[in-house]
Every structure is written in C-alpha cells, then in structure tokens.
C-alpha cells in the first residue's frame, strides 16, 4: 500500500484502526520528500528528527486513548510565515533567514492538540507577496503537474507539497488569493475562511485586515476536517471571532433584508456540511467574472461544473456583481499600506538579518532592510509608504477603503439572492516559470477573481474541475457570505462526489517506486544493522588486542 497517496482523513482512520503506525505515516511522507523534493522544492525546512520523535509520542497518546481526533498522527506541512517554536520560520526572506520563533502560532497549536505531526515548513513568495512562489529567497517551487510551470502563490509550497503527496495536507495563508490560486494551479483543494475564523496569532502579518490561515488538501473532506481543528476564537488575536455567536443570513430572494441576526449559526462543525445534496441551493454566476480575460477552457470547465450542480438540484443564474475592475487597485492600495506598516518591525534589532557595515542607527535600519528584503517586497513597501504619506492619504488610502465599502455592499446584495457565488480561481492555468516576474502588473491582474473575497472578508474554496489541453489543472472557486463556510463546503463536496481526484504523473510514478521502496528500505536497514554489529565486534576484537 502506498501511504503517501492517502487523504488525511483516510490516513487518520487507518492510524486509529492501528492499520498504519504514526511512524510509518511520517516515514511515508519523508520518503516521498526524498523522492520528489529535488524536482519540486516545496519545503524551506524539513524536520525529519523532530517529526519522527513526535510520531512516537503521538502514537503513545493514540494508544492510551488521549488522542482520538480525525488528524491524530497525520503529517501536516505548514507555510513558512506561520510561527513554529523549535523550527525556523523565514517567510522565505533573507531578513528572517535565521529566525527561530519564541512561540507557536495558535493555528499550529490547535493542530498539535489534535495530534497532527508537523513535518516541515513550506516555501512561499517572500512575505506572501506574489502569485508564483518565485519571489522566495530560497529558490522557486515547481508545479508537480509540469515542472516547467509555477505552482502559483503565495502558498505555492504548501499546494505543491500536497499535489506531490509529500504530505496529505498543509496550512496556507490567503491575503488576496494565496490559498485559492495555487490550489487551482496544483489541482488540490483549499479554503480561505471568513476573516477572523482562524487566529492570526503567530502568522507573520502582511495585510492584517485581509490575512487568513486556511487548509489545503486533496479533497473537501480533508479541508473541512482541518478547518475544524484550526479554527478557534483566540484571546491573543483581537480580530478572531467566536463563531458560536455569529449567524449567517438565509438567502430569500431579492427582497431579503436580513442581517447577521436570524439565520443559521456559523459554528465550528464544518464536517457536518459534508453532505451530498444541493437541492434548492441558489448559485450566482457573475457575468463580470466570465467575460474578457478569462481563458476559454477554464470558462468551459467551470460552467460544466455548474451544470452538474444544477443536475443535482441547484438553481443557477447569471447576474451582474459590478465593481469588479476596482477590486485589484483597492486591494493593492490597502495591502501595500498595511504591509509598509507591518514590515517596519524588521529593523535588524530584535531578530533576523543585520547588515555588517553601518554608521549609526538610522543607517543600520536602512541598509539592513535594503539588503534583507527582495525586490517585490521593497516595491510594495514603497507603494504602501506613498499611499499613506501626507498629501496622498485621502486620494489613495481613504479612496480604497471607501471602494472596499462599496464592494462589500455589492456582495451583500448578491448574497441576499444567492447562497453561493461561483467564479474562476484565476484567469489562466499555471504559467511558465519566469513569465510573470518581468512584469509585476501582469501578475497583479491575475488576482482579479480572488481579492474581492479578502476585501469583503468572505470565505472561498477552490476545487479542481479538470485539466486544460496542456494537462494543467483548472480550479473553480465557490465564494460564500460571511460565516457561510458550510454552504460552500456542501456545494464543493456535492460536486466532488461526481468526479475522481486526479493525481499528477509525478505523484503516480513516485508511488510505484515507493511501493517497492518500502521493501528496499527494510532490506537496506537489515544490511545496515548487520554491518553495525560486525563493526562493533571488530572494534571489540581490536580493542582487546591493544
């Protein structure tokens, strides 16, 4: 059996049934990493020893009944902007190259409480700024479906790791599409939750009002299970919410004026929404998302998926969302403004890189930052500093916040009529490496379908709906109203039941090798043990002679 090809929920079940030990599960991940990492490069840090040690500890806790959850014993990879005590956390930046966090992010602590085993930290665009994982200081990650193409970004490492089956699931973060777009590019499933659902404590901030941590996995079931574990109200993050006191409205057609009071409770029981039924669900298809600029094959595959949902009883309708052209400029103003403020903490004093030569404090700050940050990060810090500066603040920053209010209103109107909105995750499938870096504007425009959910705080899921003629995966996005994760999970799950999970050839080939490899490893270990005994005996003989 090839353990690496299992889903997180499937693996967890076999671990609880004692069919697979936690050490075996972790070994399977590490073996796959050994096989494919040289090609894919999903990871910045791999914690082999720590993971194997932790595996033994988790196994004991499962054996004596202390750990019973769905993810107990399951290996998980964590994006490298999420703090992990005992493991470096770099944001894929030179300025944090040697940073060892003094604490662990709340989302990761929740994973640990659930018995997950953190196997390593995944590559990303530097400080999550980028859509290709090419701005990483530690080199690019490649798309497991085609190594000449990008995995998307900024959570490219996490998505590539799941697609290549280096781990069954991973955490990413999403500020403007950084979970949903790479999930689409790598043919996996990812959720950006409602703002505030997962604590941001320990997530190194990029755009604080937009950032959310979320799950990435092979299927909707795994994502729901993972979200159920990581979501929590956390007093250490004042923007985290208690979902038990929020309710989401019911869509009741155009005249609905219901607010957040008086609907279904938002709750934390995401797996309860894994229901294969969309009877009566209203699906909105924004015309503005399916016009010019969208690749024809993507449009075709997504509309085909909508038809499948209609056959299952959903009611789909086109509508005009409006304001779509304003989302990207508003997003880049707000995200850059927040980034310029958030990244001011990297000054060469408290942690991270410090320049070697400097004259005085101010010079030290400037040189440290100029040498420590990469090009894209500096570009956004400059833009952010500009839009917040006296004289431009009203014209740019306040204007963007007013635009955000109007975008939120447009979604409010849409969700008065529809349960979910269907959209592409990106205008194209994964581009070739090096294609976007030459023209940042072009890369920014690729975020057109994802940034609005961040601006309006909405949950969104990206699920695979097939491949294009180049053999690259196509992702469909399902966006829900604030707190309405269960609706998007239900829609995505229902769609998923109609199609099989597609694996990249790289993972299939690695599986074949790995199945033989397990026997090989046992043989190799036996040889090593025998040699060790022989050496010991030889030493004893020689020692006796001396």
């Amino acid at each position: 059996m090839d353990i690496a090809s299992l889903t997180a929920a499937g693996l967890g079940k076999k671990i609880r049934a004692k069919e697979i030990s936690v050490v075996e599960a972790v070994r399977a991940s590490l073996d796959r990493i050994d096989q494919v990492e040289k090609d894919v490069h999903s990871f910045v840090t791999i914690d082999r020893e720590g993971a194997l040690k932790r595996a033994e500890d988790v196994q004991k806790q499962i054996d004596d009944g202390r750990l019973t959850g769905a993810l107990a014993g399951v290996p998980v990879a964590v994006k490298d902007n999420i703090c992990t005590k005992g493991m470096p956390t770099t944001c894929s930046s030179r300025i944090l190259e040697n940073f060892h966090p003094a604490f662990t992010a709340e989302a990761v602590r929740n994973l640990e409480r659930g018995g997950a085993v953190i196997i390593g930290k995944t590559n990303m665009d530097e400080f999550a700024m980028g859509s290709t994982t090419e701005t990483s200081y530690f080199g690019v990650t490649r798309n497991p479906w085609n190594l000449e193409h990008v995995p998307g970004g900024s959570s490219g490492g996490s998505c590539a790791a799941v697609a290549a089956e280096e781990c069954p699931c991973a955490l990413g973060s999403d500020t403007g599409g950084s979970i949903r777009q790479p999930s689409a590019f790598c043919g996996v499933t990812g959720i950006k939750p409602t703002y505030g659902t997962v604590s941001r404590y320990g997530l190194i901030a990029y755009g604080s009002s937009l950032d959310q941590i979320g799950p990435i996995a092979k299927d909707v079931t795994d994502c729901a299970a993972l979200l159920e574990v990581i979501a929590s109200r956390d007093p250490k993050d004042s923007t985290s919410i208690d979902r038990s006191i929020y309710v989401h409205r019911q869509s009741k057609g155009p005249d609905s004026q219901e607010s957040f009071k008086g609907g279904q409770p938002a709750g934390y029981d995401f797996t309860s929404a894994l229901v294969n039924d969309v009877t009566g669900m209203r699906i909105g298809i924004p015309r503005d998302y399916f016009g010019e600029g969208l690749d024809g094959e993507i449009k075709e595959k997504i509309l085909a998926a909508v038809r499948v949902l209609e056959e299952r009883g959903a009611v789909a309708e086109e509508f005009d969302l409006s304001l779509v052209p304003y989302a990207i400029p508003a997003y880049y103003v707000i995200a850059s403004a927040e980034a310029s403020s958030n990244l001011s903490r990297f000054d060469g004093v408290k942690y991270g890189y410090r320049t070697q030569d400097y004259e005085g404090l101010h010079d030290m700050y400037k040189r440290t930052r100029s040498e420590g940050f990469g090009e894209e990060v500096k570009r956004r810090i400059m833009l952010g500093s500009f839009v917040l500066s006296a004289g431009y603040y009203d014209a740019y920053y306040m204007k963007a916040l007013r635009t955000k209010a109007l975008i939120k209103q447009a979604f409010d109107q849409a969700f008065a009529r529809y349960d979910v909105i269907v959209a592409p995750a990106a205008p194209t499938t994964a581009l070739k490496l090096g294609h976007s870096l030459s023209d940042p504007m072009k890369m920014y425009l690729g975020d057109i379908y994802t940034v609005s959910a961040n601006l309006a705080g909405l949950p969104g899921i990206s699920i695979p709906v097939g491949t294009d003629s180049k053999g690259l995966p196509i992702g469909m996005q399902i966006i829900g109203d604030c707190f309405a994760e269960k609706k998007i999970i239900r829609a995505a799950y229902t769609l998923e039941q109609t199609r099989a999970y597609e694996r990249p050839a790289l993972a299939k080939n690695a599986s074949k090798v790995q199945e033989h490899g397990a026997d090989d490893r046992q043989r190799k270990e036996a040889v090593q043990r025998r040699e060790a005994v022989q050496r010991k005996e030889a030493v004893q003989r020689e020692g006796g002679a001396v």
Partner: protein
Amino acid sequence: MANKISDETIEYVGILAKLELSQKEKENARADMEKMLDYIDILNELDTEGAEPLSHVFPVYNVFREDVASQEDGSEDTLANAPVKKDNSFKVPRTIG
C-alpha cells in the same frame, strides 16, 4: 492622467519606508510606482461619495477577560534571535551623540 513622481517624492518615500535605494533602484521604483498609480487611478471613475471608509467588514463585539496577572519571562527566547545582544538586552548603535 499619467502620474509623474518627482525625485523629491522618491527620496521622501525612501525615508518613510526606511530603504536605501541605489540610483538604478530609484529609477525602477519610480517607473513601477508611476505605472501602478496610473492603474490605481481607475478608482477615480468610481463615485464613492457617501461611502464610509470600511476597515472591518462585519460587526465585531468586544470580548473581555479577567485581568489576571501572569509571570512569564520569555526574555531568553526573545533575545535568542537578536543579531547583537549584551547583558540581557538588544545592542544597537549609539543613538545619542
């Protein structure tokens, strides 16, 4: 309208951003920023009159906790990351002449 960023503005933004840019980097930054601002200016087409600037997207409720004192000394862990340290403190260049 094409945005033109003056040398003074680039200098000023560099000071705000605490970045030291070479002449070439300044030129690039200027070109990038002009291009970006030209694009962002599309927002001017949109009438935002009467729209309140929105920072948080849904109503948030204050959550209180008991004011309980706790003894936590994380100084060792915190200082472990300091590029330069001295006597349980971060060491920085002289700030007063």
